[in-house]
């Protein structure tokens, strides 16, 4: 059964609905990432699970217990905070030991010491155990916060943007550490971030949240290759997916889409599609656009605007038919602003979104062989 279940959670602050009828199930031992921009309601959701806030309506279940009526200390939840919230008057050792010294947990001094050192060793902070939080670096504070969370058994671990205040360089390293740690913990984790790289690399599943509502819940592959709507599609990828106007037309009993680039595609039959004459959004990922002609008759000319070489790749910004596009190109290419290039893309790289609902119209582009999980969220 799911380890964490949120049923129709609603939480408002004044007129703002931070969490809007949220329903979610997190499986046992799953590393679940809650992803979304600032203000999406991610931290509020964590707070509702942990007990810092009480929902206006809805229920929170952990295991088979209903916990939204319980005090935070009765929920058996561990959490790290974006600002770490280390106890400033305690040493690192005492910070980590604090949960183990709670009333009701009868552990001997030796047992506590063993657990604290285990956690410190796991996170590489044994050498600062005697220091106070004010005396250690940002990265060490973050690892102390993690150590404090994992040092005791809990039903679910909540991590609120643990890497957001960490240097970019260290962040890469810490992602690996988090992965390693989560495997060792072998427990349920809910991880909140606004960084899509973390979401895709760490999560077993990702929930995309915006304005308190879940747009999609799925594996990293699903949310990336089969985004449920425009918002999800734009959430992943740097630069963002290119979005163009397009129209559906009928020709010989089959539907065609005409893009603003001037290209046309025939859509496969057997798809439930809206009627001809509908306006749609067309999506093309920068990495799917290529230089040169692929020979399928969809190549088009574009004028070079800006080229940014970025080390591992380059970003070319070009305009075709009045549409500005970002294209990923090899980093050692060179382009003259104003010159013309030929661009093309494979037909199956095309995304179509309904103008009104912004839902992804085409069927999911991938099918996961082992128990395909639906790309849609319960809403």
């Amino acid at each position, binding site marked *: 059964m799911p380890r964490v279940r949120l049923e129709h959670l609603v939480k408002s602050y004044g007129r703002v609905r931070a969490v809007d009828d949220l329903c979610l199930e997190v499986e046992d031992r799953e590393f679940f990432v809650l992803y979304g921009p600032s203000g999406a309601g991610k931290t509020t959701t964590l707070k509702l699970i942990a007990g810092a806030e009480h929902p206006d309506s809805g229920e929170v279940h952990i295991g088979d217990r209903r916990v939204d009526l319980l005090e935070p200390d009765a929920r058996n939840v561990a959490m790290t905070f974006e600002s770490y919230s280390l106890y400033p008057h305690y040493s690192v050792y005492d910070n980590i030991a604090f949960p183990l010294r709670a009333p009701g947990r009868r552990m001997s001094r030796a047992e506590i010491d063993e657990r604290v050192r285990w956690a410190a060793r796991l996170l590489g902070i044994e050498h600062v155990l005697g220091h106070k939080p004010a005396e250690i670096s940002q990265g060490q504070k973050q690892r102390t916060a993690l150590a*404090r969370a994992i040092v005791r058994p809990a039903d679910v671990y909540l991590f609120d943007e643990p890497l957001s205040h960490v240097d970019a360089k260290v962040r890469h390293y810490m992602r690996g550490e988090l992965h390693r740690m989560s495997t060792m913990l072998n427990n349920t984790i809910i991880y909140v971030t606004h960084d899509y790289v973390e979401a895709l690399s760490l999560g077993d599943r990702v929930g995309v949240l915006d304005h308190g509502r879940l747009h999609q819940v799925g594996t990293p592959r699903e949310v990336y290759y089969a985004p449920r709507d425009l918002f999800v599609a734009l959430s992943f990828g740097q630069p963002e997916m290119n979005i163009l106007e397009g129209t559906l037309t009928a020709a010989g009993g089959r539907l065609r889409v005409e893009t603003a680039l001037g290209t046309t595609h025939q859509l496969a039959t057997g798809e439930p599609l809206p009627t001809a004459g509908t306006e749609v959004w067309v999506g093309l990922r920068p990495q799917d656009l290529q230089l040169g002609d692929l020979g399928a008759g969809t190549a088009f000319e574009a004028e070079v605007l800006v080229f940014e070489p970025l080390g591992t790749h380059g970003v070319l910004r070009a305009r075709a038919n009045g549409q500005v596009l970002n294209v990923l190109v090899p980093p050692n290419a060179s382009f003259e602003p104003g010159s013309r290039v030929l661009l093309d893309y494979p037909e199956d790289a095309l995304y179509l979104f309904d103008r009104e609902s912004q839902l992804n119209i085409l069927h999911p582009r991938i099918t996961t062989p082992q128990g395909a999980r639906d790309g849609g969220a319960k809403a």
Partner: protein
Amino acid sequence: MRKWLAHLVLIAIYLFFLLPLYWVVAMSFMTNQQILTYPPQFAFSPTLANYKALVLGQLGGGVGTLQVDYLHNFVNSLIVSCGAVGLSLVAGIPAAYALARFRFRGADNWAFTLLSFRFAPALLILIPLLQIYQSVGLYNTYWGLILAYQLITLPFIVWIVRGYFEDVSPELEFAARLDGYGWWRSFWHVSLPLVKPGVAAAALLAFIYAWNNFIFALVLGSSDVQPVTVATLSFMTASGIQYGVIAAALVISVVPILLLAVYAQRFLVRGLSMGAIKG
């Protein structure tokens, strides 16, 4: 030239402020004879006779010995001041926390009412309170004074400690809750230690104002519980008491506070302005 003048003026002003204190201390070490000599001698050989007399409770005057119990008054001051501050801490710290953390009905109104006590004329409460105390049996008792002193000490605790609680992040308390501590325990282990300096400052100031209080003790107490402030006045007007002994009594009544003040300088500015100004 400017600097020299500034220093001169500064020293002159400080002489005005410090000489009277120095002189009363000096007088406490003088015999009656030495005091009465005019012009006053700045060099003299000190004697402990005055202090001995006060401590032992016997004054050898011109007309036989007088029983005096000044030490009892000193102890009274101690009991009442410590008691008042203690009670205010117990009642005031939770209230300060509540005001800092929660927005509840009547919060600001009540906080202002509490503060207004600090600025209201004491007799407004004291005279009717005296009637009540006399009928209830609280007149001339320690508890009577301790309860009355709350008007003085409680506002300090609530207002100053509240400011410090506002600086403590609520997230810290929540972290303690998640770590398995009930509300009260997380308050005790996390919130309270972090406002220790505020509590110290508030308690210090409240103690000073309680110790220095005069009118409350004058109205609501009599010889049994008189603190040093009131006792010294009657001491001074009583006949047959030597000036040196009076000086010694004055010194004893201020020494504890002066020592505290020197020790805890830095808390004082913030406390004096009731938290309006960061020292």
